[in-house]
């Protein structure tokens, strides 16, 4: 118990001291994961929408494949990307390996299927009359889509939060294609992996606390918004 407590308090102390290296690492994590999420979001929602509202042959094969990709470990995604980006690989000339753009690409691959799966289920749960109402009131297909997004905004928010959680907390792909290079591609999770390997649990816990805190701030504000915009009425 003592040891556990000691680890936590040292972690807090280390954070409070405002170590610039530590905060630099946090910055890498956030810029990479936020970029990945931003780039993946609209395409993923569009795919989710198409899968929810259009029937075409092979539709459920696509859904199954996307769901299955969720069960592929991040390190395997990283590995395949590594082989593509490696000098010996087909995209080696892009010189992307061990850079942040490579990490972003990895995380896009990781959050895309999750965003599709969760938005698909949000769209399926939505009332079928939403699109009809929008269309009949003059919405073009794009406007109808935006209206639908608005109507299911809480479920989509949950999807975005979950996806962000997945990629900011992942280590496999970031390590593989980023390489954990200090000041360049070392992010929170690869730093944790390094420190725990050294038996330095304090740093690991400190970085974990940063992630938890930042996620809390994000979620508390979202949660606050959500709970204040919703008044309960039961059906009649």
């Amino acid at each position: 118990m003592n040891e556990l407590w000691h680890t936590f308090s040292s972690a807090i102390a280390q954070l409070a001291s405002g170590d610039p290296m530590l905060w630099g690492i946090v910055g890498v994590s956030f810029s990479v994961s936020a970029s990945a999420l931003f780039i993946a979001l609209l395409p993923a929602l569009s795919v989710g929408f198409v899968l929810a509202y259009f029937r075409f042959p092979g539709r459920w094969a696509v859904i199954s494949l996307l769901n299955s990709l969720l069960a592929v470990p991040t390190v395997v995604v990283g590995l395949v990307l590594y082989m593509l980006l490696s000098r010996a690989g087909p995209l080696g000339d892009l010189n992307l390996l061990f850079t942040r753009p490579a990490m972003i690409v990895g995380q896009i691959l990781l959050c895309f299927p999750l965003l599709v799966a969760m938005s698909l289920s949000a769209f399926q749960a939505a009332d079928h009359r939403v699109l009809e109402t929008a269309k009949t009131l003059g919405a073009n297909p794009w406007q109808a889509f935006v209206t639908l997004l608005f109507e299911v905004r809480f479920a989509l928010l949950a999807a975005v939060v979950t996806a962000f959680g997945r990629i900011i907390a992942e280590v496999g792909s970031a390590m593989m294609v980023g390489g954990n290079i200090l000041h360049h591609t070392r992010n929170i999770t690869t730093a944790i992996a390094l420190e725990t390997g050294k038996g330095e649990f304090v740093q690991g816990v400190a970085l974990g606390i940063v992630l938890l805190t930042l996620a809390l701030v994000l979620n508390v504000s979202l949660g606050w918004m959500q709970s204040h915009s919703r008044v309960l009425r039961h059906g009649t």
Partner: protein
Amino acid sequence: RIATTTSTYNSGLLDHLLSAYGETHDLEVQVISVGTGKALRMAQNGDVDLVMTHAPVAEAAFMDQGFGIEARSVMYNDFILVGPKADPAKVHGTHTVTEGLQRIAAFNSKFISRGDDSGTHKKELQLWQHLGASPTFSGYLESGRGMGHSLQMASELGAYTMTDRGTWLALKQKLNLQLVLESDPRLLNPYQVMLVNPARHSHVKVNEAREFAQWLINSEGQAAIGSFRINGEALFLPSAE
């Protein structure tokens, strides 16, 4: 870019060397720390410019196939056997590593093998081979992890393991283990640097890599290696001729 084994990076040696190097040179060195196998693989793919590893056999193969050039020995450290304080197999007091390992097997004590194809693991397998048998007793566990984690696991499970001295010194205080056997000449652990062959990968920064490698083996670099201490103990001994 240099790919190197976790032992040199996690012990802090590389940071020590880079800061010494940075005082006199204006060249940024990016470190990617991975297992020996993967480091060689990255070099083979041309994803790094320089490697520093400690697996003589694999390194020889790497050189023979023409992936690397200018292999130079840089330094060495040594391996030791550590085990639980109670020392149930009574390894303490034996003088050769073969005898020590034999006792562990005979008592069916727990032994953590890294099982990760690292330089350390290869060395350990070699030693078992000397005993004429592959380790099959039920206490023999393959952790499949790096040295630091394997030591922690040994500490948690009350097991023996073989480790490089550097990692041991760095972690010793946090472990519930003691040193049970050292200084058998079989336990020496040499490190080499190799440049990636520019004939295979024209894009590698061979000049910069060579500059750093040269620095490592000249008197400045060798002194820096020799002066690296953890808790007052030297980890690596310079070995460049």
